[in-house]
C-alpha cells in the first residue's frame, strides 16, 4: 500500500520517490537495454566541454530545441485582436489544435480558431471545397464579424490560391459578399511566428481599409503591438495614452480576448478593436509599432499605401519608455504629464536601489528579436552585461540593430549575438562560458536544470508559471516588473547558495 495516508494523498511529485516505486524502477532496468551509468555520466560531462561545443556549433542540418514557432501561430494571434474575428486556418487540421493548445496553455484562456480540415483528397485536388464548406459552417456556427484566413504548410506546398478560393466561396454563398474575409499566406517553412503575425495583420488592415481613405486625418495614432504575449503591455500602452490624452487605435487589441473576466457567462469574442476603428486607421496621423521584426511588411504597407509615417519604439526600460513618451508628445503635441514623470522617478529610484546586485552580472538571454532588443536596452541601463544572445528567428537587420545597441554601452562589449542558433547551442555556451542569469521562456527550465544558472521567465510561451503574462514589461511600471523578477531571482539564488548551516550560512543575510 503506497497511499499510506488518505488525508495526504501523494501524486507523482512524491509517490514515485517511495520505496515500492524505487524498486520498480530498479527492476525495470534489466529490460531496458540501457547504457552503463558510468558511460552516461561520462558522456554528460563531455557535453559540457569546449570540444563538444565546437561539434555542436558545427552542425548544419539539425535543429535541437528551437526558440521559434511557425507562421500561422502568429497569424491567429493577430486576428483575435479584432472585434468578433474568427481565425480560419486553411490546411491540415492538426495545426489548429496545436495552436489553440499552445495559446491556451500560456494564457489560460479559451482560444477559438477553425480549420478547413484538408485531407488526402484535398492534397490531390486542392482545398477549394474545404474553403467553401468551412467558411459556410464557421460563419453559421460562430457568427463572427470577420473571418481571418491564413494557411498551413500543406496548403502552401500544394499551392492553394486563397484569393480565388475566398472569392469563389463568396460566390457560392458561404458568407455574404460584403462580409470581410481578409487572408494571408503563411507558409511555415518561411520565417517564424512573427512573420505570420506580420502577414496576417497586413492582410487584415489591407482588407478593412480598402476605400476608406478620407480627405483629412482622424487625429489618431495607430499602435501596433506585434507578437505580444503580455496582456499587461497592451493595458499599459492604453493607460499611458489615456494619461497623455491621446486618441489612438490599437491594431489590434487582444487584451480582453486573452484575459477576460470570469462572470459565469462564456463570451467567445470578448473585446477587440472595432472593425470600424480598424478601417479608419488608414486616416490616422501616424503609426507606432512596438516591435520592428513582426511588423516589417505591415509598416511598409502603411507607409506606401496609406502614406502614413510609421516608427518603431520599444517601451522597455527607462530610456525605451522615455523614447516612447517623447515620440507620442512629438506626434500629438500633448505634454508628458506629471503623473508619468513621477512614475519614471519611482522606477529610476527602484533601479538605483537595486543596482549593486545587478552591476556587472553576466546574462544569457534568448527570444524573439524585438523582445531581445527590449531586454538588452534594459540590461545595459542597469549595468548588467549581456553575454550570450540567442535568437532562433534572427535576420540581418535585427543583428545590425542589436549590434549597434550593444556597441553603444561599455556593458555590451562582451556580448555575442547567436543568430539562427537554438537552445542546445545555448546549453553549450552556458557550460563553457558560464553566466549569472538566464532569461527566456519556459523551455529555459531544462537549461536551468542542466546548468544551474538562475533563470527568469520572460518571453513566450510561459507554461509552468502562472499569471506572468498578465503583467507588463512596458512602461515605467513594466520596468519595475522586470527589475523585480530579475533582482529577486538573483537574491533567491544567493539565499539558496548560502543555506547550509555552519558552512555557507555565514552569508545567509537578513538584510540585502
Amino acid at each position, binding site marked *: *500500500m503506497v497511499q499510506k495516508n488518505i488525508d495526504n*494523498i501523494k501524486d*507523482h511529485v512524491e509517490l514515485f520517490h517511495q520505496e515500492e516505486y524505487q524498486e520498480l524502477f530498479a527492476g525495470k532496468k534489466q529490460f531496458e537495454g540501457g547504457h552503463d551509468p558510468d558511460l552516461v555520466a561520462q558522456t554528460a560531462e563531455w557535453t559540457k566541454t569546449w570540444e563538444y561545443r565546437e561539434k555542436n556549433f558545427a552542425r548544419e542540418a539539425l535543429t*535541437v530545441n528551437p526558440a*521559434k514557432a511557425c507562421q500561422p501561430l502568429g497569424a491567429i494571434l493577430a486576428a483575435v485582436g479584432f472585434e468578433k474575428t474568427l481565425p480560419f486556418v486553411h490546411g491540415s487540421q492538426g495545426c489548429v489544435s496545436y495552436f489553440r493548445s499552445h495559446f*491556451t496553455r500560456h494564457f489560460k484562456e479559451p482560444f477559438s480558431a*477553425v480549420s478547413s480540415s484538408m485531407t488526402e483528397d484535398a492534397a490531390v485536388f486542392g482545398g477549394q471545397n474545404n474553403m467553401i464548406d468551412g467558411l459556410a459552417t464557421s460563419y453559421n456556427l*460562430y457568427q463572427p464579424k470577420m473571418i481571418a484566413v491564413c494557411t498551413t504548410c500543406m496548403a502552401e506546398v500544394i499551392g492553394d490560391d486563397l484569393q480565388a478560393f475566398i472569392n469563389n466561396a463568396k460566390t457560392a454563398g458561404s458568407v455574404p459578399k460584403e462580409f470581410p474575409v481578409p487572408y494571408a499566406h503563411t507558409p511555415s517553412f518561411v520565417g517564424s511566428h512573427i512573420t505570420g503575425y506580420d502577414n496576417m495583420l497586413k492582410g487584415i488592415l489591407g482588407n478593412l481599409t480598402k476605400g476608406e481613405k478620407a480627405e483629412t486625418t482622424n487625429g489618431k495614432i495607430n499602435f501596433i503591438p506585434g507578437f505580444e504575449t503580455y496582456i499587461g503591455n497592451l493595458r499599459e500602452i492604453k493607460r499611458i495614452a489615456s494619461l497623455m490624452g491621446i486618441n489612438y487605435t490599437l491594431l489590434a487589441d487582444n487584451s480582453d480576448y486573452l484575459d477576460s473576466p470570469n462572470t459565469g457567462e462564456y463570451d467567445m469574442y470578448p473585446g477587440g478593436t472595432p472593425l470600424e476603428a480598424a478601417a479608419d486607421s488608414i486616416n490616422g496621423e501616424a503609426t507606432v509599432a512596438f516591435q520592428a521584426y513582426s511588423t516589417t511588411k505591415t509598416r511598409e504597407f502603411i507607409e506606401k499605401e496609406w502614406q502614413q509615417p510609421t516608427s518603431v519604439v520599444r517601451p522597455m526600460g527607462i530610456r525605451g519608455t522615455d523614447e516612447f513618451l517623447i515620440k507620442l508628445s512629438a506626434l500629438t503635441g500633448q505634454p508628458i504629464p506629471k503623473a508619468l514623470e513621477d512614475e519614471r522617478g519611482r522606477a529610476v529610484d527602484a533601479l538605483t536601489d537595486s543596482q549593486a546586485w545587478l552591476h556587472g552580472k553576466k546574462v544569457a538571454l534568448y527570444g524573439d528579436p524585438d523582445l531581445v532588443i527590449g531586454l538588452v536596452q534594459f540590461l545595459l541601463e542597469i549595468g548588467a552585461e549581456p553575454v550570450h544572445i540567442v535568437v532562433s528567428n534572427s535576420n540581418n537587420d535585427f543583428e545590425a540593430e542589436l549590434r549597434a545597441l550593444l556597441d553603444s554601452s561599455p556593458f555590451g562589449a562582451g556580448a555575442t549575438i547567436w543568430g539562427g542558433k537554438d537552445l542546445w547551442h545555448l546549453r553549450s555556451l552556458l557550460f563553457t562560458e558560464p553566466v549569472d542569469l538566464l532569461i527566456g521562456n519556459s523551455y529555459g527550465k*531544462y537549461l536551468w536544470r542542466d546548468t544551474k544558472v538562475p533563470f527568469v521567465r520572460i518571453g513566450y510561451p510561459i507554461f509552468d508559471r502562472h499569471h506572468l503574462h498578465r503583467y507588463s514589461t512596458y512602461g515605467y511600471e513594466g520596468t519595475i516588473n522586470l527589475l523585480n523578477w530579475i533582482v529577486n531571482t538573483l537574491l533567491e539564488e544567493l539565499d539558496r547558495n548560502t543555506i547550509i548551516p555552519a558552512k555557507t550560512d555565514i552569508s545567509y543575510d537578513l538584510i540585502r
Partner: protein
Amino acid sequence: MTPPLSAPIEEKPVLETPEKTAQNPVLATKELIQEVLEVYPDKAKKKREKHLNVFEEGKSDCGVKSNIKSVPGSMTTRGCAYAGSKGVVWGPIKDMIHISHGPVGCGYYSWSGRRNYYIGTTGIDSFGTMDFTSDFQERDIVFGGDKKLAKLITELDELFPLNRGVSIQSECPIGLIGDDIEAVAKKASKEIGKTVVPVRCEGFRGVSQSLGHHIANDAIRDWVFPQYDKEKKAGNIADGTEYDVAIIGDYNIGGDAWSSRILIEEIGLRVAAQWSGDGTLHEMINTPSVKLNLVHCYRSMNYISRHMEETYGIPWLEYNFFGPTQIAESLRAIAAKFDEKIQANAEAVIAKYEAQTKAVIEKFLPRLKDKTVALMVGGLRPRHVIPAFHDLGMKLIGTGYEFGHNDDYKRTTHYVENGTLIYDDVSAYEFEAFIKELKPDLVASGIKEKYVFQKMALPFRQMHSWDYSGPYHGYDGFAIFARDMDLALNSPTWSLIGAPWKKAEITAQ
C-alpha cells in the same frame, strides 16, 4: 478476440432535469440534438447528425458514426496523424531520437506537451522532453529534404552518441514533395549502425490522430520487429519466463504506467516490455518474446497487438485500471490467463489494497455522490474512466470520442446508461450548447475546452494530461483521481464568480 471488460453498473435512476421529468429522457435528449443541429448549413448538418445520438439500453452500439472526416470550419478538437505517431506512439520511446521532419512548428507545439514520464538523463541517454527538427526552409521544399535528413542523422548521432535509434516523423510537406525517407533511413541505419525508422505520418493523412497511431504501429511492425526475428533466429533472444507480459498502450502520463506496472508485478507477472511510456527500443524489440500482451489503449495499439497475435501467436487482453471495481475485475481477468498461483496472488493484491480503496471512497464519496459528469476525450478514456467516476458515486450524462472508431463505441455500451448523450468528434459549438443545456457538475475534457467551461463557472478537469496531476491508473492513481475530482468540484473559488450586486439585481428582478 478479447471481449471488452464489462462494467458492473448498478441500476440507477436516469438523471433528468426537472422540466423534463415528464418526458422520456432518450427523446428529450434527441430533441436537444436536433435543436443544436439547427444552426448548421444543410450539408454540414447532414454530416453532423450522424455523429450525435442518445444511448439506448440494449443496443449494440451508441448509434453514432465515427472515424469520418471532420466538418471543415466546425472547430473540431482533433489533431493529425503526426500527433498520433510522434505525439502518442513514438515520442515516449525514451532512448530514441524522434525527428520532427519538416517545418519547425509541429515539433515545437508538441514539445513536452504530453507529460510522458520517464527515468533517464535527458539529452544524454534519454530524449523525451526535447525537440529535434529539420526546420524546413523554402529551399528544402523546392529541392527536397532527403540530403538534409541524411546529414542531420549523422550530426545527431555524433552529438547524442548514446541514442539507441532514430525515428523520422513526417510532417505534411514530406509526402507532398516526394521525398524518399525510406531510402534515407536504410542508408543512415547502415551508417550509424542503429535502428532508423521512417514514419509516413504526414498530418493530412486520415481524419485524426487515429491513422497516425496505425501508421506508427505499422512502422514498428516493419522496422523494429524484423530485428526480433533476426535476433531470434541467431539465438540471441532469451526465452524469458512463462509469466512474461508486456504493457501495451500506456503512455505513462503522470506516471500511469508505473502505477499499473506495480500491480501487474505484484500479482507475480514479469513485465518484459512497456509501450511506449518510459519505454526503450530494446523493450520494443523483445516484445514478441512475451506470453501475453496487456493492452491499455486499444485504440492506439490494437493494430500491433493483432499483428503479434497473428505472427507470433501472442494473445492480448484489454484491461482497465481506472477505479477499484475495474482494477479488481481486470486483475482477475489477467490472472485467469495464468496459473492458480497468479490467481491467488491477484486475490491477495485486491485484498491488500482494499483498506486503501475503502478509505478513499469513505472520504470522497460523500463529497462527490450524485454529481454529474460530461466527458469528451480521445480514443479510450471516454469509456475507461467512467467506472472510476461510478466508484465515487458520480454519474455520467454525456460522453464522446475525439477520434474513436465504431469498435470503441461498441465497447462503450458496457459502460454507459440508458439516455446518455453520445457525441462523436464534437465541435466546440455543439459541446458548449450541450453543456449549457445539460448542466453537468463537472466537465472532463481537454485543454482547449477547459477555460470555455470554467468561464461558465463549471468545474473542469483535463482528462488527457490529468491537469498536470496523476497518475490516475491503479489503486494509487485512484486515490489521486478522487482527490482531484473533489478539489475541482468543491473548490470555494467557483462561489466567487458573479459580483454580489449583480446577483442581487437578478434576484430582485
